């Protein structure tokens, strides 16, 4: 494979895996969404401070949800899990489930309360 030239003439039939051909427009749209969410995140991190003064647990819930949304978008569109084989999703999700379990149980064991409401960070 290494000795192939990249000249346009030699291009054979498309060699994609199961996923749909990558689409520049979608990539850029996703980037814009990710960028906007990041801005919202920065804004949301001031929610529990004056003048808004929301409860800390609301801020944390919002922030964690936004981060999860960003992660989901990256995984689904930039890492192609939306279009690729279910097997990759299964492999990745299994790891994420065990990782989440680990993090939650560790936080519980160290006395963070059961709901995010009590999260003392």
């Amino acid at each position: 494979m290494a000795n192939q030239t990249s000249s346009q003439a030699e291009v054979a039939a498309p060699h994609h895996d199961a996923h749909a051909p990558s689409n520049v427009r979608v990539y850029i749209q996703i980037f814009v969404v990710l960028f906007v969410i990041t801005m919202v995140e920065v804004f949301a991190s001031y929610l529990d401070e004056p003048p808004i003064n929301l409860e800390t647990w609301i801020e944390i819930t919002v922030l964690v949800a936004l981060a999860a949304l960003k992660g989901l978008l990256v995984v689904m569109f930039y890492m192609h899990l939306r279009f690729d084989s279910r097997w990759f999703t299964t492999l990745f999700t299994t790891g994420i489930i065990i990782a989440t379990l680990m993090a939650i149980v560790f936080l519980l064991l160290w006395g963070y309360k059961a709901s995010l409401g009590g999260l003392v960070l």
Partner: protein
Amino acid sequence: MATTAVPVPQAGERSRWATIWEWITTVDHKRIGILYIFTAIAFFVWGGIDALLLRIQLAAPENNFLSPQVYNELFTMHGTTMVFMAVMPLNVGLGNFIVPLMVGANDMAYPRLNALSYWLFLFGGIFLSSSYIIGHPPDAGWFAYAPLSANGGVLPKTNAMDFWVIGINILGVSSILGAVNFIVTILNLRAPGMKFNRMPLFVWAQLVVAFLIVFAFPSITVASILLYFDRNFGTAFFLPERGGDPMLWQHLFWFFGHPEVYILILPAFGIISEVFPVFSRKPIFGYAFIAYSSVAIGFLGFTVWAHHMFAVGMGPIANAAFSATSLMISIPTGVKIFNWLATLWGGSLNFKTPLYYGVAFIFLFVIGGITGVMLAIPPLDYQTTDSYFVVGHFHYVLFGGAIFGLFAGFYYWWPKMFGRMLSERLGIWQFWLMFIGMNLTFMPMHYLGMIGQPRRTWTYEAGMGFEFWNLMETIGALIIALSVAIFLLNVILSRRNGEIPGDDPWDGHTLEWATSSPPPAHNFDKMPVIRSRRPVWDLKYGDAQHFTEPRDVKAAGSTDEDEHSHGIHLPPPSFYPIILAFGLTVAGYGLLYIYSGGVWGIVIGLSIMWVGIAGLASEAARD
């Protein structure tokens, strides 16, 4: 190492060096499996010698055979060696040889990575063992509880635990890479017709184990790196006097440590599930239950880790929760036991050595399982934790379970691996000695634990009622040693005098019996059509409705391989895996002497690694 003296399947008239070179550069899963097995047997013997020395020390009260420090070193190295350098690699070795054959593949998914895993295992083992010679052997126990392991404390301040930390990480890299290889091989390289619900149960077990390794090892990696920082760079993750939290070590360690128990035992479950149907001449009873209960055990295994820590004061809620999840594990395990018994029930039993080991496995493992259920109950655990009761419990699981399972596997697959049978007579002798020795060694430990003998303590006073049974245990350990010696003798004798088995000495069911013994480099000349869970059985005894004529591999296989003679693409041998593994080990020694010029060791090690990585990458690009 004894590894290069292994019999070569097709011994030609090549010189000795050519043969050694061939084994060093091999990427053949069968040779790598054999290397794994012989290296691991060497470490098994070494770890056994550690255990014998411990038993001699404990044979009499107030004995002075070993000093307390040496006793600490020996029990630490006994545990570490047996877990990481004996049982795990024995499982990997058997899996390496058998799994690709069982699923009908030509090799593992990444043959060069496979070689890399082996060399990392060998060098990691040598690294840890070199502590006997050039330093001090690790002395804080195989679970290396901080702060004892972090700053010396009552132990002398040496780099002993740095050997442990770095060695464990080299072995960990080996295990993770090997596990990824197994997962991809099993998911992706099955022969046509080998659906998931037709895979042999040994393959299922190896698949679950590989996932356990992939998900459990990162935790010990993080924990041990933090421990290294605490020991060498002045951080205080686990040092309570500077605000750190020793409980964090325990949780990170056991998040790995408990799945590790299943990593050790599940392959034995798989072996037993292969041996029972063949030697009772029946299909396995409850195939799906056995397969899915392995998955259930694997998943539940990540939810029970803190049952190792009931006595450290987590509080009643945490203790109750982890007790409940631990008790739940006994359900899928019990499912397996009943299915195995039902497989034997009514079968026409062919009582050969593998079945002896298999039946003993059930007996011993159930004892270990029941004491496990007892220990999962916090009030009982408070009374028995850190006593010999626990030592007795886990030796019934890991010796009566894992080791007996492995011996069943050795006697079962030895003819396939080497083209020679192991002697049945010596096998039966070995079995009875091991069975008696094992029970004599570990059964009294339950009693001694109950009456209060603490584990990890170098001696005991006379007159406490410990003397008689400790002496018996030492005699039992010597009987086990005799049994292992007979096994080694059997191995040596079989090379010359072993019966030539033919392709299928046991009248087997699974694909490895469809090829020659030992198999050719490309594994299969003819591949049977896989229509059921017992393709080879179908081939031999199938009725007319099943198409069981062997068909040519080329026809079953692939598209554009015209240029290869037998239609199978085998990767060429490679020298780079051993280079890469060597570089990482050099860097490991650099980390060991970080304050006395070790930085240069790291630089040199990383440079050597880079040569290996670049070489492997260019070879991979050429595939």
